[in-house]
């Protein structure tokens, strides 16, 4: 068997298992999805009211609607819950059997992310299409070349959030509650990633701080490419360079924390 076939089977088996578990927990998925939609819906509601019949720095109700529909989709497609899982695996001894497998635990996590994103992404796209059928303003202008770029940006953004979450979760090798760190980071990220407002509506210095961090490269940039709003659609090269830089940075950090943390691992429990 070739290496490609071996790895395809492994990823396929993990994804299959994840989907089978999902079928058992249908209500759980629906609730998480609702949670994912609520936040951008509230933000849209606020900006919709603020914009009224006019605009806010060039943003009309139409551009806000498209932007926040984009945020809903991109957030779901790049979301990573790994910090909580890793924290739990380490604290409860569930990392043990994963470390004894002939493949690194990161592969199970990647496969799980693919499974998660495929299902929630599909649902959000269906909801978007249904909404667009009855509410024309959320229809996107046809721009296939930008959608292709958006797809690439989504993959890179998902990679940034994945390795960010995985690396922070691995801090549980040293501290007992690494997930607290990611919760704090999430709270800051909601603001700096453009989930509450397009970054070009924020004060200049806040937008500058944000663009020096990884948050907008994971959400605001792909949203701009997809919807043509948000400000980043005019900085495509800068966006991709930032994405690659942060992806490499978080990947290196993950590798560093993994190598050093393993020696600290107490392998508690069975």
């Amino acid at each position, binding site marked *: 068997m070739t290496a490609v076939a*071996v790895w395809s089977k492994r990823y396929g*088996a*993990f994804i*299959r298992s994840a989907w089978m578990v999902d079928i*058992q927990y249908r209500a759980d998925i629906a609730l998480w999805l609702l949670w994912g939609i609520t936040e951008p819906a509230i933000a849209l509601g606020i900006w919709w009211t603020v914009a009224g019949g006019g605009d806010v720095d060039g943003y009309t109700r139409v551009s806000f609607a498209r932007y926040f529909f984009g945020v809903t989709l991109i957030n779901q497609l790049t979301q990573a819950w790994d910090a909580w899982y890793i924290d739990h695996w380490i604290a409860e001894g569930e990392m*043990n059997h994963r*470390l004894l497998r*002939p*493949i690194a635990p990161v592969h199970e996590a990647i496969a799980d992310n693919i499974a998660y994103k495929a299902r929630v992404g599909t649902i959000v796209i269906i909801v978007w299409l249904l909404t667009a059928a009855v509410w024309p303003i959320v229809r996107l202008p046809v721009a296939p070349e930008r959608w292709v770029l958006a797809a690439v940006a989504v993959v890179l953004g998902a990679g940034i959030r994945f390795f960010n979450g995985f690396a922070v979760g691995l801090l549980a090798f040293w501290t007992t509650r690494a997930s607290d760190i990611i919760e704090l980071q999430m709270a800051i990220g909601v603001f700096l990633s453009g989930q509450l407002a397009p970054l070009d509506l924020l004060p200049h210095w806040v937008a500058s701080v944000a663009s020096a961090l990884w948050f907008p490269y994971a959400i605001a940039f792909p949203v701009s490419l997809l919807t043509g709003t948000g400000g980043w659609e005019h900085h495509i090269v800068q966006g991709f360079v930032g994405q690659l830089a942060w992806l490499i940075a978080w990947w290196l950090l993950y590798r560093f924390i993994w190598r050093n943390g393993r020696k600290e691992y107490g392998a508690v429990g*069975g």
Partner: protein
Amino acid sequence: MGLYVHRPMISATQLSKHYRVKVRDSGIGGALRAIVAPRYEDVVAVDNLTFSIDRGEVVAFLGPNGAGKTTTLKMITGLLYPTSGKIEVAGVNPWTAGSAFKSRLALVFGNKQQLLWDLPVDETFRLNRAIYSIPDTIYNEQRAELIELLELEELLDRPVRNLSLGERMKCELAAALLHRPELVLLDEPTLGLDVNAQDAVRGFLNEYGTRHTATILLTSHYMADVTALAKRVIMIDRGRLIYDGSLQGLVERTVPIKRIEVTLTPNATFDSIARFGEVKRFQYPHAVIEVPRAEAPEASARILMSGVIADLSIQDPPIEEVIRQVFARDSRAGRDGGAE
């Protein structure tokens, strides 16, 4: 002609593992002090352990709770990084060994599971087949063998969460052994199981070891596991090795007596059997007499000739008692600052 070099399956040399543990006094004051001026204590879990295990051996690790048994197993598998010393498993360092090494071993915990909780048992088998890249022929053969030996046929389609503890343990073993590991480490494999399930697991492990010449290491608090599976025992207490040898040798060294269990005739009295040895129990029509091991054959002959017994059997003292005595001695030696 090549020179044959004997390579054991496991070789540990002066293996040690220390944990740095935060010390915290009780109460709110203690909690605050732990933040302001944290204190740490070095806990020695494994202390200069040296042993070697050959391929195909079945060895039991014995020791009281916290003796360092599980920590040793975890260092053997590469889960834990030793503080000092050297360990080699199948000719490689488990810490740096890659995926090929991991495909050669299995570690099963009696108190933790790797089965997919929400899915039917067969789903874990399918997942492990992909993870370990088990070729179709071996997978089908091994799966069929495990289903037969562990009587799993009825369980395969049932979600793991609906299985009893014993059923789950059997499935756990099957999932862990699908890739036919040559080194199997078991941490309390019969923990919490009823007598029938314990027997089934022991019988299976014996069969698996014989069929595949697997090296098996187990820890257990059930002496029946040890006597049924292992000929060799390694005893650890407070991280130190206190015995490494045959189970029989341990019994002979620790308790140099034999226990003669007799069924008495109606005319037997306590005094009539007391002259043969120390009467440990007298409850008509049964009695137990202990005699020095070397004198057991002669004493048995004299008891038989005495005419006060109807039946007789010669036994070693129960293994639980032997173990208790070993740990009691080691504990006294530790308190006195001496070593055995």
